[in-house]
């Protein structure tokens, strides 16, 4: 997207936000509908892992944003940055409340920075794309600590999304054996992913491998 297009889009966004702050909350609708997808896909779901909970968090994020809209101050950056911050905090809160898997939850939450950097671009979609690539890089870094067999199983099944039979064929095992390998691989990944941030020294060593 060219700079002129970005500037025009930002100006339109600023006008809609001002109109919503003046009382016409319905003016927020096009903004929320356009940012729902990147918030869900790159901010919330990668932190929670459960699509239903991620939808609830997205709804809560929008509700909070609308309620606190009068506190938002336009600084020349897209309102997406502000929405993203709310979403990250909501995702943290879900993990704290659930207490189901604090280790993994904290690891998932800490993996991605809570605040966007000052040098972040103003375009929301660009921010979302950068976040997606950061998510990908962190998953790959965590997978580096797994054995090759486990890493291959995860790559074939969850990243390339091949069918089970095809994955088994490529690994020269039966489908039932591949199921067991994938099961153990995801368990290992989860355990490793949770332990990584528990020991920053260890996580630094793991990332260097």
């Amino acid at each position: 997207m060219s700079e002129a297009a970005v500037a025009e889009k930002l100006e339109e966004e600023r006008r809609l936000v001002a109109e919503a702050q003046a009382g016409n909350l319905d003016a927020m609708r096009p903004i929320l509908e356009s940012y729902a997808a990147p918030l869900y896909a790159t901010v919330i779901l990668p932190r929670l892992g459960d699509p239903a909970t991620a939808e609830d968090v997205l709804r809560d994020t929008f509700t909070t944003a609308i309620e606190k809209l009068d506190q938002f101050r336009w600084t020349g950056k897209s309102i997406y940055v502000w929405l993203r911050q709310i979403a990250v905090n909501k995702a943290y809160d879900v993990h704290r409340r659930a207490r189901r898997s604090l280790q993994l939850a904290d690891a998932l939450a800490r993996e991605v920075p809570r605040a966007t950097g000052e040098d972040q671009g103003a375009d929301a979609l660009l921010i979302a794309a950068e976040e997606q690539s950061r998510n990908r890089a962190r998953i790959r870094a965590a997978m580096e600590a797994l054995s090759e067999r486990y890493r291959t199983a995860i790559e074939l099944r969850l990243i390339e999304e091949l069918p089970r039979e095809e994955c088994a064929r490529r690994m020269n095992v039966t489908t039932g054996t591949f199921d067991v390998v994938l099961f153990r691989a995801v368990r290992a990944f989860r355990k490793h992913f949770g332990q990584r941030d528990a020991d920053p020294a260890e996580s630094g060593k793991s990332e260097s491998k």
Partner: protein
Amino acid sequence: MSRDDEHDGRPDQPDEDAPVTPAERARAEAFGRLVDGLLAGEPLPPAMDSDARALIETATVVVASSRPMELGEERTRRLVDSALEAAVLGRPRAGARPLTPVPVPEREEFSERSATDLRVRRRRRDRAARALPWVVASVAAVAAVVLFIVRPNEQPSEPGADEAEIASAPPAAEAPTEPVHTSRPADPLFGPIPRGEAGRARERIDLLFADRMAGYRDLQFRRALPEEEP
């Protein structure tokens, strides 16, 4: 790939070559089906054991990090609608009409309790609506008790009060102080019959008969005699 490399300086990992138990095989197969559903975009089953849920969520994180998982236009629209409605506390969507802003109380920034506060307020409202009929009934009962206490002074009721009420009721006409029972009100033969003599009617009938017979004999005798000259 050497087994030593797998465990050298790395956190514990499930041993790849550990024997597979039937239970583990069954769980692995079930997990494989869950992953099939995940990649097909199906929702997770509502009931799952915690270990299976944790694993499928981990798998979801991996998948979501490699490619964006779409929400769908219709679901997005519904989600935004419900968020707008929730933000204005349940007011129906106005369509083209602008929504009036709701005063937002002072709160910490990004407080997690905003959605919770909405639910708390709604619960309080429902509780008040449920308690309202009881409040109205209580007020009515209290009012009835108060009115009963401050009611005008009345005679205490006693058994047989009905007859007393009738007796004390203002009479339609003037009544004598003593009840008088007479055969004929102005009959000179008997005069007023005291209440105590009311039961001696036979004697009065005999006397009345005798008197009527005497009068009849007298009349007959007078008719038979020649008229005397004055």
